[in-house]
C-alpha cells in the first residue's frame, strides 16, 4: 500500500497535476469566498472542461476546487459576516465576532488550520481504512440517522442566545418554511397556494443571503450617522491578536481532532453532508467546552469545531463514493460523475483495476491541502485589506454580490424575489427578537430529518419498538439528552455576562 502511495506521489509531481492543483485552489477560494456562489457551481462549470484532460489531472483539479471552495466560504464569513455556503454559517457567528474585535487575522488563521487539519485527517482515513470504514457506515440506516439528526437539532440550545422559547419559535418557523413546495416523499404540494414557482420550495442560497446577509446591510445604513459605530474594521495593534499562537492551537487541538472525527464519520454516512456535520461537531464541542458561554460570541474553539468538521466531509464523502459507489452528498455525486466519465468506475474494484490512478489522486488530495495552506495564507493580507475598506465601499459590493449570487444559482428571476422577501423577513425577525441563525438550522435540518423519519416509519410499520433496537440509536439518544441538560444547566448559572446578540 505504501509503495502505491509513493508511486502516486511520483505521478502527481508533474507539471500538469501541480498546475491543475494551483489553478483549482485559486478558483475554489475565489468562488467559495464570493457570497452566494458555491463550490458545487464551480465544479459543475469546470467538469466538462476536464473531459479532455487525463483522469489524474482532471479529477485533482475538481477536488482542489471542491476543497478550496469549502474553505473559501469561511473567508467572507469571517470578514464580512456573509457565509458563502450553509456549512460556513457557524464560522460566521464566531469569526465575525472576532473580526469586530479586531482579531480577523486570528480567526482566519484558526479556520485555515482547522480546515486543513480536518481535510488531512479525513484524507488519511480515506487512504488507509476506506473499505472497512464504509462497511460500518452502512449500518447507519434511516432509523439511526433520525436520532443522529435529533442530536444535531440540540445545537439550538447553543445558538438560541438568551431566550430558549424564542429560539424554539425561530426554529419552528425555519421548519415551516422548509416544508414549502413539493414533498419529496409523497409528491404532495405543500403551502404553494397554487403557485408553480413555489413547487421547488425556497431556493436555499437566496434565502440564506436574505436572512443573514442583507439585514446586516440595512443595519449599517441605519447606523450610518451613529458616531459610536466605526465604519471600518480596525486591526488590533497587538500583533498577538492577528495570528494564532501555538499555545492557542494546542488548546483547541483536541477539539480539532474530535470535530474532524465527527466530520469524517458524518461525511461517510451517505446523504447528510457538510452542514449537519458542522452542527454536530459544534454542539458536541460546546457541550464539553470549558467556556461554553463564549460560543457564538467569538470563540476560536467554535471556529475550529465547525471548520474542521465541514472540511473533513470533503475527504470522507469520497469513502462511500469510491468504495461502495454511493455519493455522500451533492458534490460527491458530481465528482462521481467525473470519475465515471473518466472511465474510473467507483466501487471496491477501483483500487485493484486503477491502482496507480487512484493513488495518484489520493496523493493529489494531500498535496492540495498543502497548497491550500500556502496559497490561502499568502492571500490573508489581501483579504483583510479588502475587508478593512470603508463600509460604504464594502456593503454596496456585498449587495451586488448578494443579488448576483441569488440569481446565478438557478438563473431564475424568482430567486431575486425570494432574496427580497427573506431580507424583509430576516430584518423583521431581528426587530421582534427572533433568532435568524436558529431559523436557518431549522430550515437546513428539517428536510433530512423528515426524509429519514418517513423512511424509518415505513421500515418499522406499526412495530414502533423497532426504532429503539439499534445501539447506534441509543448513543445518539443519550448524547441528545446530555446536550439538552447541559444547555439548560448553563442557563441556570447566574448570568453575569454582558448580553450579546448571537447574530
Amino acid at each position, binding site marked *: 500500500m505504501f509503495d502505491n502511495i509513493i508511486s502516486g506521489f511520483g505521478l502527481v509531481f508533474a507539471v500538469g497535476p501541480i498546475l491543475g492543483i494551483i489553478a483549482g485552489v485559486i478558483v475554489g477560494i475565489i468562488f467559495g469566498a464570493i457570497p452566494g456562489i458555491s463550490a458545487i457551481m464551480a465544479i*459543475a462549470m469546470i467538469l466538462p472542461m476536464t473531459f479532455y484532460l487525463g483522469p489524474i489531472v482532471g479529477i485533482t483539479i475538481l477536488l482542489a476546487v471542491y476543497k478550496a471552495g469549502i474553505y473559501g466560504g469561511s473567508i467572507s464569513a469571517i470578514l464580512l459576516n456573509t457565509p458563502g455556503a450553509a456549512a460556513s454559517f457557524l464560522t460566521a457567528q464566531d469569526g465575525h465576532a472576532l473580526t469586530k474585535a479586531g482579531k480577523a487575522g486570528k480567526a482566519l488563521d484558526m479556520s485555515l488550520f482547522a480546515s486543513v487539519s480536518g481535510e488531512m485527517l479525513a484524507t488519511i482515513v480515506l487512504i488507509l481504512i476506506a473499505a472497512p470504514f464504509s462497511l460500518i457506515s452502512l449500518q447507519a440506516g434511516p432509523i439511526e440517522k433520525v436520532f443522529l439528526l435529533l442530536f444535531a437539532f440540540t445545537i439550538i440550545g447553543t445558538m438560541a442566545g438568551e431566550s430558549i422559547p424564542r429560539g424554539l419559535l425561530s426554529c419552528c418557523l425555519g421548519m415551516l418554511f422548509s416544508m414549502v413546495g413539493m414533498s419529496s*416523499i409523497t409528491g404532495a404540494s405543500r403551502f404553494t397556494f397554487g403557485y408553480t414557482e413555489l413547487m421547488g420550495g425556497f431556493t436555499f442560497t437566496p434565502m440564506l443571503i436574505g436572512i443573514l446577509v442583507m439585514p446586516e446591510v440595512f443595519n449599517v445604513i441605519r447606523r450610518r450617522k451613529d458616531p459610536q459605530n466605526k465604519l471600518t474594521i480596525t486591526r488590533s495593534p497587538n500583533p498577538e491578536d492577528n495570528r494564532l499562537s501555538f499555545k492557542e492551537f494546542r488548546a483547541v487541538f483536541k477539539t480539532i481532532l474530535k470535530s474532524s472525527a465527527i466530520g469524517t464519520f458524518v461525511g461517510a454516512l451517505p446523504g447528510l453532508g457538510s452542514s449537519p456535520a458542522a452542527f454536530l461537531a459544534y454542539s458536541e464541542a460546546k457541550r464539553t467546552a470549558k467556556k461554553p458561554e463564549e460560543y457564538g460570541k467569538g470563540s476560536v474553539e467554535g471556529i475550529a469545531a465547525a471548520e474542521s468538521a465541514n472540511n473533513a466531509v470533503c475527504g470522507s464523502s469520497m469513502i462511500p463514493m469510491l468504495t461502495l459507489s454511493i455519493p455522500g452528498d451533492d458534490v460527491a455525486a458530481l465528482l462521481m*460523475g467525473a470519475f465515471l*466519465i473518466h472511465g474510473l468506475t467507483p466501487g471496491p474494484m477501483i483500487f485493484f483495476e486503477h491502482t496507480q490512478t487512484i493513488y495518484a489522486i489520493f496523493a493529489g488530495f494531500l498535496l492540495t491541502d498543502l497548497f491550500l495552506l500556502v496559497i490561502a495564507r499568502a492571500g490573508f493580507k489581501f483579504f483583510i485589506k479588502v475587508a478593512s475598506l470603508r463600509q460604504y465601499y464594502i456593503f454596496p459590493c456585498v449587495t451586488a454580490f448578494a443579488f448576483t449570487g441569488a440569481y446565478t444559482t438557478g438563473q431564475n428571476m424568482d430567486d431575486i424575489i425570494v432574496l427580497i422577501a427573506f431580507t424583509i423577513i430576516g430584518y423583521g425577525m431581528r426587530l421582534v427578537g427572533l433568532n435568524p441563525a436558529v431559523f436557518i438550522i431549522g430550515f437546513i435540518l428539517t428536510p433530512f430529518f423528515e426524509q429519514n423519519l418517513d423512511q424509518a416509519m*415505513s421500515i418499522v410499520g406499526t412495530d414502533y419498538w423497532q426504532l429503539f433496537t439499534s445501539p447506534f440509536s441509543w448513543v445518539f439518544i443519550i448524547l441528545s439528552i446530555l446536550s439538552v441538560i447541559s444547555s439548560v444547566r448553563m442557563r441556570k448559572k447566574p448570568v453575569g455576562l454582558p448580553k450579546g446578540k448571537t447574530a
Partner: protein
Amino acid sequence: MKNFKKALTVISTTLAVSLASSAVMAAYPNKPINVIVPWGAGGDSDLTTRIWAKAVEKDLGVPVVVINKSGGGGIIGTSYVARARKDGYTLINAGLSNMLVTPNFSKAPYSFDSFTPIVKMTSVPLGVIVAADSPYKTFPEFVANAKNNTITQGSWGASSSGTILAEIIAKESGYKPRYVNAKSSAESMVSLVGGHIDSAVAFPPAFGPHVAAGRARVLVMNKEMAEYPNVPTFADYGIKGSFEGWSGIFAPKGVPQEVIDRLTAATAKAMKDPEVIAQYKNIGATMDFRHGPEWIADMKTTYGIMKTAAAEAKK
C-alpha cells in the same frame, strides 16, 4: 454561398409558413443553445445531457450550455422550457419522470403535448433488486413471500417514476409492498445493502456497482442486458408494460422543423463518435438513439398506461 442560399430558403419558408413568427432565422443555430436539466448536477440525466451537449457542440458550431434548474420534482425546469421561446435555443432534458409520470401524477402546469420530442439518447431498464444475503433467489419466490408478508421496497418518492413503475409491477404480480422513499435511488441502494430494507427498484447506474461487487442481486429486469446474463425480464413473467428510464432532448411545442432536423442530424453524428460511446458506457447507460414518429407513438402508449394508472390511484 451555400449557407447563404440555405438561409434564404429558410427565411422565405418561415415567412411563408407564418408571418406571425417574428423569429427571423439565419441558419440555425447562430447563437448559444441552452439545455435545461430539471435535476441537480451529477445525476444520470445531468451526465447524459452534458455528454450529449459536449458532443453536438462540435457539429453545431455554437456552445451548448447545460443549465441545472432543479426542484419541485423536475416541474420547475420543465415548465420553464414549456413556456420558453419556440426558437430552438431553449431545450429540455426529457425523461420518463418529467414527461410521462409527473404530468399524470402531480399537478404540473404542462403536459407531454407541451413539447416537441427531438431525440432519445439513452435508456436504462428498471430492475427489482434484493441484497445478496436475501432469502429470495428468484422473482416468483419473492412474489410468493410478498403476497403473505409485508415487505419493504426502496424507491424515490411517492409520485416518482420509480414508485409508479413499482406499483404497476406489484399490481400485476399481486403483492403490495411498503415503499421506503429515499432521496435518490443511490441512497435507496445504501439502505438495501445495509440490510435496512427488503428490496428496491433501481436502474443499472445505481445498482450495477453493487451487483458487480456481489452485494446485491437483480431478480428481474425490463430488458436483457449483456452485463446481467440469465436475469429474466418482466415479460417472461407476463408483466406487460415498458419499465425503462430514458433520457432525451425535447423542445417547446411548435419549434421549426429545421431545428428538429438540425439537432437530429448532429445527434446522429455524435452517437457514432467512439468517444461518446465510451463515455455513455462509462456512466452505465445504454445508447438508444431514436427519433421520429414511431418513437413518439411508443411514448404516447406509455403515457396512456400512466394515465390509466393515475386515474386508478386517485380512486
